[in-house]
């Protein structure tokens, strides 16, 4: 074969490896038990060479695992020792610092052998719903309270599973069957990846991945460096203040474009919080790197070489580089705010590229339901209480994304997270919860030439006979998304009970029988001055009810007559698409 011809073959193999890890990820979605994996897609899967360099990562999954996954396998090789890796082994950890940022992520690594020789590794990560301890939430004071810790170790050695480890896991978590089911799902998906890899090596008559690894990494490195070196040599600062748990947090970043690399340093960022919203550096790296890749090199696949030129640093024991034993369970709340912080700096270096600020972190909450404990008098109420059950229900929801330089923000759509919501009909089958409302929140997108995405309303109660604890995981109550280039801010998060009892944005809070929690999730901010907005788009927004008549007049200067004209046309069934 000529060298040109073999380049075609190498390209085929690169495509194949990306397809292999995609199969690996799909197998995980289909066999996993935790809602966070199977419904929300909070997972990751990848293939590595013998040195632990990541060659391909599945597109299915969420950005929080991007760099974490790339770094994980070298930790396993180092901890276990190269002489201690055998055919039939499977390794496991949930170390927040050597895995993917909190105890609720389990990472499983499997060495891949071909003709008795080690040829590479497969790794996958999944977010599981419970790992014991205080349960998923911000309330712990250290990582020891957050659940069971599994150091990097062997789950299986030469095909023999470690039943002692399995028993310890089972004895320490609330839903042992499901967690063990998820551990099996993780090792099954690596096994499926391994089989496909061996098929490929046989088809192309390979005895190692070395040549294809160099091809992938060389091409990726060159493409990434081309993009970076095309940027103007510049430096800028960015910052953002958010709610935090006990006090507001300042996120600060210093961004530098240099030849062959981008430096992103978080010096000046607030210190640790007492509660579990601190972020291990690996998770900070993931979201900082994700934000930069979206803006600079979006179509280059993630692997060791395409990620290496992005150098992310932060002072030890700042909230974005929390070290052991800081509590880190809700590291996503702060982690999801990192892209908007990076974009505050990037906008000064690359104008008209990045969006305005958005809702940022997902608007997740967990409901712990139980039979009511207050006094009941009527027989009907007693019967309802006696029929009531205990149940844990976790949901994933999104506010609005920030407006872009040339289009509106996205309504109720996750950014930067890559997860999905669950159907409310499915949620109501999981436990005795009733979602009374889940719809767009008009007027919550910041006004502008391009409007911020709308947040959403939710209203949550329980089936008759129950009361519940509500575990809130929200931000942007006091610090809404800020507009860019003259765009207005998005609406803040609001949380209360239906009798107007106020509630906090974070932490576990009791909700008595008969009460509902009323939630307004934040909108994205606007981009550009509202006065520059195309009046046709304003009319459409009014017709669709994205904005109210008042907002239309106040923000966009419409007269009452203009507003009435649109609203009357809507009544007659006229279309505004």
């Amino acid at each position, binding site marked *: 074969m000529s060298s040109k011809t073999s380049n075609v073959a190498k390209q085929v193999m690169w495509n194949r490896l990306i397809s292999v890890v995609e199969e690996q990820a799909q197998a995980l979605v289909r066999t996993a038990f935790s809602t966070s994996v199977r419904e929300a897609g909070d997972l990751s899967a990848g293939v590595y060479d013998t040195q632990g360099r990541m060659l391909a990562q599945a597109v299915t999954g969420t950005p929080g695992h991007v760099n974490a996954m790339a770094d994980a396998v070298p930790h396993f090789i180092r901890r276990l020792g190269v002489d201690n890796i055998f055919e039939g082994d499977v390794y496991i950890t949930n170390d927040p610092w050597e895995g993917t940022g909190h105890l609720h992520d389990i990472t499983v690594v499997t060495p891949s052998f071909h003709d008795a020789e080690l040829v590479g590794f497969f790794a996958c990560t999944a977010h599981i719903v419970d790992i014991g301890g205080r349960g998923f939430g911000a309330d712990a004071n250290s990582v020891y309270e957050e659940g069971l810790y599994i150091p990097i170790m062997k789950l299986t050695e030469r095909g023999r599973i470690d039943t002692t480890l399995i028993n310890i896991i089972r004895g320490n978590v609330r839903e042992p069957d499901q967690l063990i089911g998820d551990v099996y799902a993780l090792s099954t998906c690596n096994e499926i990846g391994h089989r496909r890899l061996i098929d490929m090596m046989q088809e192309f008559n390979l005895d190692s991945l070395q040549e294809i690894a160099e091809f992938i990494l060389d091409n990726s490195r060159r493409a990434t460096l081309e993009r970076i070196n095309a940027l103007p040599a510049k430096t800028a600062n960015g910052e953002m203040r958010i709610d935090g748990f006990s006090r507001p947090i300042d996120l600060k970043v210093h961004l530098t474009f240099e030849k062959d690399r981008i430096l992103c340093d978080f010096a000046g960022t607030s210190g640790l919080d007492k509660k579990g919203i601190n972020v291990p550096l690996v998770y900070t790296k993931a979201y900082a790197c994700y934000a930069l890749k979206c803006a600079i090199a979006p179509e280059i696949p993630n692997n060791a070489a395409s990620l290496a030129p992005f150098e992310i640093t932060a002072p030890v024991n700042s909230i974005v580089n929390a070290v052991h034993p800081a509590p880190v369970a809700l590291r996503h709340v702060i982690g999801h705010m990192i892209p908007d912080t990076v974009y505050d700096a990037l906008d000064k270096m690359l104008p008209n590229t990045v969006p305005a600020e958005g809702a940022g972190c997902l608007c997740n909450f967990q409901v712990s339901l139980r039979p009511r404990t207050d006094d009941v008098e009527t027989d009907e109420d007693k019967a309802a209480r006696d029929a009531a059950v205990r149940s844990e229900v976790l949901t994933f929801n999104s506010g609005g994304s920030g407006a872009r330089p040339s289009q509106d923000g996205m309504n109720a759509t996750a950014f930067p997270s890559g997860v999905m919501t669950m159907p409310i009909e499915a949620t109501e089958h999981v436990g005795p919860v009733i979602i009374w409302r889940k719809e767009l929140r008009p007027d919550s997108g910041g006004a502008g030439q391009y409007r911020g995405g709308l947040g959403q309303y939710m209203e949550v109660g329980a089936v008759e006979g129950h009361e519940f604890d509500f575990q809130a995981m929200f931000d942007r109550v006091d610090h809404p998304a800020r507009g860019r280039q003259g765009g207005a801010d998005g609406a803040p998060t609001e949380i209360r009970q239906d009798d107007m009892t106020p509630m906090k944005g974070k932490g576990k809070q009791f909700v008595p029988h008969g009460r509902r929690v009323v939630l307004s999730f934040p909108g994205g901010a606007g981009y550009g001055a509202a006065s520059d907005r195309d009046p046709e788009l304003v009319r459409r927004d009014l017709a669709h009810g994205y904005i109210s008549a008042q907002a239309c007049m106040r923000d966009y200067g419409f007269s009452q007559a203009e507003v009435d004209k649109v609203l009357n046309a809507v009544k007659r069934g006229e279309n505004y*698409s």
Partner: protein
Amino acid sequence: MATGNPHVRLGVDIGGTFTDVVLETGSEQFSTKVLTTYGAPEDAIIDGLKQVCAKASIEPSEIGQIIHGTTLATNALIERRGARTALITTEGFRDVIEMRTESRFEQYDLDLTLPEPLLARHQRFTVTERISARGEVLIELDPKEVESLVGRIKEAGYESVAVGLIHSYLNNKHENLIRDAINAKLPDVMVSLSSEVSPQMREYERFNTVVANAYIKPLMKSYLGRLQGELKKQQVDCPIFLMHSGGGIISLESAAEFPVRLVESGPAGGAVFAANIASRYGLDKVLSFDMGGTTAKICLIKNQTPKTSRVFEVARTYRFKKGSGMPISIPVIDMVEIGAGGGSLASVDAMRQIRVGPHSAGSEPGPACYGRGGDKPAVTDADLVLGKLDPDNFAGGSISLHADESAKALEAVLGEPLGMDAQTAAYGLVEVVDENMANAARVHAVENGEDLAEYTMIAFGGAAPLHASRLCEKLGVERLLVPPGAGVGSAIGFLRAPFSFEANRSHYMKLSDFDADVVSQLLSELSDEATAFVRSCDADAPIASEFKAYMRYSGQGWEIPVSLTSEQALNPDVQTYQALFEADYAALFGRVVDGMDIEITVWAVNATTPSQVEEPIALADVNGVAQSDVRRRVFDAAVGENVDAAVVLRDEFETGKLLKGPAIVTEDETTIIVPQSREAMRQSDGCIDITVQG
């Protein structure tokens, strides 16, 4: 009373470019392709009908049955050409079809545009009411509020209304009351209920499905009415049936009521076509591969039955990417469709890798080789440069191809940046598109727990025979069949489809709370419902019911379909259900999970008349070598260089003759490539049977 000879049957497939018409007179088959007439699609049918009747020397009035499939429903959804439609939904859930899954289907695109919902926000109305997850009424519907809502519908002049209420698949009382109220006041407005169109859990999919149904209902109803009228004018007064997405046929009346079931009926016909060939050859594991101008479709056919699914996505807006379209939950033949066809265009990305599709050159300007100004290389251009196509005999000689234009486009777009000559660029392009298709097939097989090495491929559609052998090499598939009539495969498939209708319903049940009485009652109700639909098409034929329970471990999110015999369905016992599920789960994922409760979420019954069982053909014995005087240089990708190939006309390829690769079999509609690793033989039914050289 219907007229016509019951043995004279017409299959009609309206596609995006061509309307295919196939006439079978019992002994013979006649086919034609005419350009689709978008303004009045029935015109092309009448035109094609006249052509095939003339070929067969019969009068149109002799036609005894018409089976029709169409892409019109799909296109109306893609092009947003539906009726003035409103949605009525539960207070608090106005935006379900707009909020989707609240996620981005492409994570790295900051300028991502989400697809617009089929109905804008002001076309979505809410009403105070609520059903619980146990099917109980939490808030009663207020008739006065409904009445005022009907007034607003009237004022706005909506022609069609979709009703989708939370948990209505468990209790349809409120949806029915709303329909009654609309019918009473606005008899001309068409109403679609989510509890009838798609009675399944998950509000986004169900609401979107009922909205799609309502949106295309007036259009399809009027089209089907006009078609009936035009056919009568031609003295064709026979029953007309419609192919549905699940691979069966339904009455014209059912189709007009549930037009969303017609979406993807053309590709479903293709799968039925392949299944029919499979039965003729007694093949239990078949991979059907349908490659046309813009997309390739791949489907698994086990035991001569195409695999089915309960949900799929239509009108993808972003590179055929999962999540960028709208979900429709109806019984559908499960296939993967990717943007890889003869017209798919190639480019070079930032990593200096060749990318192919999903953009297509279409018919105007077409690939560069058409010589109509196309300057980007398409798959067809690469096929031409590699010698796989004869420039002078493309489409029966109706379009002459310009290899120099192909080479120019390949060099400019791929060769220049990559330092390759035109042929190497063409090789790279074809390898990439073949690999894309092979990867799609692999992922589909893995998702279904299948090993493709045990499969036989059946290839049809204009571009498939050019690429099928290479796919077989890549997938380790040892046998490939290219049937005759491959260019009108879907329309032939319509004529082979059984009458069938699938009824399904969401009903949660854990095996730990298994209630045999409820199960047998539910399944017999569904069986009655599905059978009634089929009975309306055929008063006499025996009707069989196929039962399925969708099961998973309690806590998982994905069910697997578990087939039940009628004995297991109607006299259910929990041990059998558990054993059946565990066997299927282990086959898919390698092992069962001990100690977990198992649950059933959806129940389905497919009532069907018997499939047309083909007489198995006797395989021909080799009786000599196919003769050929013509030879052509063709590039063999597995070998990596040009080889000398024998060229044989399909019409002159005799039964039992062996043709060793490298070879090329040509016909008007397509060209079959037999690479060096394979050999071909013609079977008595005209299929070209291509296997690994012994």
